[in-house]
């Protein structure tokens, strides 16, 4: 293709004061320069929270400048309907961008924070004057080609940096160069570069996490995200991938039978719900993990209003013969319980297979060592095949 016919990538950035919108625009231009692409950036001051955020507009021609016969002419202003990427640090400002027509369903990737900074009008209300964030997100999904939405304020806080680094990470997948180019540009910043890089990485991770389930109705998307979190917590990331793979098949089948999504992907949503519960069911390993978690001991101590120095014992009663344990470890546990040898910590009792098995342990130690101990084996064998 003739390089002169290639269209520039149009990026519109909206940020509030102090969030580093200018820094972000400069990073993008610097990265474009280091990648050898012509780029241009302008900014229009605004009054965020009253009439609109300060915006920065960047155009990049993704063609090496050296190969062009002459310098390209790039626009100073964004044009409604002709923006490829809109990135905004505040949800209501995102709403304004949509209302102004800069976000279009056929073209625009919208990267937005879900965090809110209340406007003057919202704060002036006598009661609760806050605008419904759900409506803003619905508009974001309805009017864009793709949405990446997450709480950038929290991510920036977590990394100890400004919002700009997180925004840069979140959009880096759309930019026409490698991640390393962005990181090199951030690294030149000197002081604070390390925190910026951490924020950048969080932005990338958040954007990628969302890429998997984009374009779905919100309820279905939320259900899939919750389900994936649950199975990953149960086992590991690969197990989470298996969950998503399985759902992808169901989603494809539902799409075949209901291409207009007239049921809002309810079939996929309900399968996501029950599949997560099934794949991460409360087996004895999980119960042991919950029972021996520090948070539980703290809660129990609080419930019995116990002084910190004294000890208390809790008794956990399992059903007959503890069916979820593999038979071999069950027998060993029963035998060791009687001899009182299992790691010297378990004082379990098992009278017979038809009476409840009880294990007692001090609040301060793991109360079910055999069950916790079999977690590794279970991961490799029984659990992953559930």
């Amino acid at each position, binding site marked *: 293709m003739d390089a002169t016919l290639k269209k520039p990538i149009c990026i519109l950035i909206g940020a509030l004061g102090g969030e580093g919108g200018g820094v972000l625009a400069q990073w993008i231009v610097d990265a474009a320069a280091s990648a050898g692409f012509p780029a241009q950036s302008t900014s229009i001051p605004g009054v965020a929270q009253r009439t609109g955020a300060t915006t920065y507009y960047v155009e990049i021609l993704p063609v090496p400048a050296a190969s062009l016969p002459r310098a390209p002419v790039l626009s100073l202003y964004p044009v409604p309907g002709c923006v490829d990427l809109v990135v905004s640090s505040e949800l209501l400002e995102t709403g304004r961008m949509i209302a102004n027509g800069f976000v279009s369903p056929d073209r625009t990737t919208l990267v937005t924070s879900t965090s809110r900074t209340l406007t003057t009008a919202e704060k002036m209300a006598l009661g609760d004057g806050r605008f419904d964030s759900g409506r803003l997100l619905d508009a974001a999904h309805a009017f864009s080609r793709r949405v990446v939405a997450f709480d950038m304020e929290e991510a920036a806080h977590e990394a100890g940096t400004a919002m700009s680094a997180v925004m840069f990470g979140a959009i880096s997948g759309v930019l026409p160069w490698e991640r390393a180019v962005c990181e090199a540009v951030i690294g030149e910043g000197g002081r604070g570069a390390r925190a910026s890089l951490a924020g950048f990485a969080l932005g990338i991770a958040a954007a990628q996490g969302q890429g998997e389930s984009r374009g779905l109705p919100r309820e279905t998307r939320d259900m899939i995200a919750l389900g994936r979190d649950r199975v990953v917590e149960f086992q590991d990331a690969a197990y989470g991938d298996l969950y998503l793979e*399985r759902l992808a*098949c*169901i989603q*494809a*089948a*539902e799409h*075949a*039978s*209901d291409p207009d999504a007239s*049921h809002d992907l*309810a*079939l996929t949503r*309900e*399968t996501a*719900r*029950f*599949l997560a*519960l*099934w*794949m991460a*069911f*409360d*087996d*004895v390993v999980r*119960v042991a993990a919950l029972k021996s978690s520090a948070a539980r001991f703290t809660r129990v101590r609080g419930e019995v209003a116990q002084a910190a120095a004294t000890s208390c014992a809790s008794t956990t009663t399992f*059903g007959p*013969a503890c*069916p*979820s344990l593999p038979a071999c470890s069950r027998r060993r546990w029963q035998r060791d319980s*009687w001899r009182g040898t299992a790691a010297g910590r378990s004082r379990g009792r098992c009278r*017979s*297979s*038809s009476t409840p098995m009880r294990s007692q342990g001090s609040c301060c130690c793991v109360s079910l060592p055999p069950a916790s101990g079999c977690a590794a084996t279970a991961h490799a064998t029984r659990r992953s095949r*559930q």
Partner: protein
Amino acid sequence: MIEQWLDAVSQASKASWARGYELALCGRLVKGYGATNERGKRNLVHIVTHLATSDAAVIREAREAALGDEGGKALDRALLAHGAPPRPVVAQPVRFVRRTHP
């Protein structure tokens, strides 16, 4: 077993969205742990095996029957009413345990 259920859901939804949806909801039958969990899975597999090509309403009826009573009598009645075989009787192991002294 999960795969069997998922396959049934996707096959059924290709024929009829409502049927696939009702089968997807049958995932609710698997819950708890131990005997409850095993029984739930058996009921699910039975419905998936014998009713996967039935009407959505039949699948819904069977599911509600299975959730309705613990012993599964209502489920068996629902299965019979729609021409499916009742669930097979499950062998219950009798365990003899040597009495031990601490």
